[in-house]
């Protein structure tokens, strides 16, 4: 069924009896060509591009819970391509371009809103760094715009530019950045993949791999064994737990990141703002809630909930740039488990086991990557060679000293 304005009107006039489920509820087949583990944004996007762009078939996505129950449904929905390094920027710009055509491509309203993102500058050194970053972005075909304090004041009159400790000295804007309705991304990819014959199997946890003579030939699941020519792991925060079953240790620690939503307010924040002197980022949802977050809690965790010191730290960051935040009440907060890698960048690669592929290490920034991650992972699965925008995301980059470390922090995952 195609969704359209005409269809909405027709259904409104006929009592909404014609809407079917958006994807089929299927039982697993005994064998597939491709088994994708993890029904998050990346797993579903991988299945969609495998079927649509790379014309592959016999594809299944196995999800231990329900699709969209992981980080794809827990993030703060910011998309952008404002990276510095060559290994990253072409990939994230490719992703932003895919976001721009996503809704037409999927025939699904994912509420892609290019409301712009603004990174505030508070020191002269930071201005130099942001000018450099902006130039790197432009060289890679992205957009970047250095704004003066006066230009920022015009759009965000309530910002405290004169804070004695953290004065706002300008900002780097990416006008094509913005937000996307996160659940709709999972649902849109699921529906579009399903329409192209992909089996989406929920409540199906992968509990082990079938590995014979160094080749992975299938998976064991809570719904029985499933054979596959290629097995593609794509489980974000659970990466280490899953790959341990194949005997692998990863350059990843799992950490908890919290997110917060205030009570609904009148329209106030036209775009996304980030505070540059601490760690705080904020946007306003279409329902009016201020959606914000900051640093990860900083210790290994699978608990999907964080602790109070970080709540205080995030709120202090917010209060430093817009003190009126203190008058709003917090409505909801939650946590998600981040696959923090050793250099802050992801891995999309074959493993040393034939037929077993890995996608993970997304840290707190994998939502914006969803379309490109799916696209390049599908490319790798179909062709056994990396997509041109993802050649640097290899496992062996750590051994070879080819880290992609945007922040220059070294192998300390909680600092990325």
């Amino acid at each position: 069924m195609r969704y359209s304005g005409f269809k909405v009107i027709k259904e409104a006039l006929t009592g909404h009896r014609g809407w079917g489920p958006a994807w089929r509820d299927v039982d697993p087949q005994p064998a597939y060509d491709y088994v994708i583990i993890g029904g998050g944004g990346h797993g579903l996007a991988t299945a969609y591009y495998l079927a649509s762009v790379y014309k592959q078939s016999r594809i299944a996505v196995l999800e231990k819970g329900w699709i969209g129950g992981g980080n794809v449904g827990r993030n703060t929905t910011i998309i952008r391509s404002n990276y510095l390094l060559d290994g990253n920027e072409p990939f994230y710009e490719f992703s932003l371009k895919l976001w721009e055509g996503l809704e037409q491509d999927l025939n699904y309203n994912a509420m892609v809103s290019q409301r712009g993102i603004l990174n505030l500058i508070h020191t002269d050194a930071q201005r130099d760094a942001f000018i450099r970053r902006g130039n790197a972005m432009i060289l890679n075909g992205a957009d970047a715009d250095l704004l003066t304090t006066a230009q920022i004041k015009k759009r965000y009159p309530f910002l405290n530019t004169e804070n004695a400790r953290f004065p706002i000295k300008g900002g780097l804007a990416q006008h094509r950045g913005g937000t996307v309705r996160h659940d709709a991304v999972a649902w849109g990819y699921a529906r579009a993949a399903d329409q192209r014959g992909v089996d989406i199997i929920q409540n199906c946890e992968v509990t082990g791999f079938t590995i014979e003579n160094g080749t992975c030939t299938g998976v064991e699941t809570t719904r029985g064994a499933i054979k596959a020519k290629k097995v593609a792991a794509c489980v974000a925060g659970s990466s280490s737990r899953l790959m341990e079953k194949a005997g692998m240790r990863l350059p990843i620690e799992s950490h908890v990141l919290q997110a917060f939503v205030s009570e609904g307010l009148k329209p106030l924040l036209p775009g996304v703002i980030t505070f540059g002197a601490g760690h705080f980022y904020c946007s306003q949802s279409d329902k009016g809630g201020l959606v914000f977050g900051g640093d990860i809690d900083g210790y290994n965790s699978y608990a999907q909930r964080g602790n109070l010191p970080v709540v205080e730290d995030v709120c202090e960051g917010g209060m430093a740039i817009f003190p009126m935040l203190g008058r709003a009440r917090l409505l909801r907060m939650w946590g998600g488990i981040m696959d923090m890698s050793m250099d802050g960048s992801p891995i999309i690669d074959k493993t040393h086991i034939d037929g077993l592929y890995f996608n993970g290490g997304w840290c707190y920034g994998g939502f914006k990557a969803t379309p490109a991650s799916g696209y390049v992972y599908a490319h790798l699965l179909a062709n056994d060679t990396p997509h041109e925008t993802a050649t640097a995301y290899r496992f062996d980059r750590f051994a070879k000293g080819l880290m992609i470390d945007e922040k220059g922090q070294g192998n300390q995952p909680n600092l990325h």
Partner: protein
Amino acid sequence: MIINHPLLGPRDSAEFTYMGDARLINRPDWQADDAVAQFTDYGYLRDNPAGAHRELWFHEGGDRSWLVVTRDTTTHEITNVELARDVARAEGRSK
């Protein structure tokens, strides 16, 4: 989280800096034949279990001692706290 410091008693975890897996105490031998491979593993690979995890916490905002904390990563419950110095000595790391 409250960390029960062996010398100072219960302290807020916010006084500490988290430094990762306690296996980092066991620095490989730089003269071993496969030292490069060992250091690559040591520097970049982690166990990352869901459940009991032994990890290093540095009391940066306190007495600057290093602790080995055993904590459940699924509940955040802390079951054991030792001085990293004692752990290292027991493993024969320093005299």
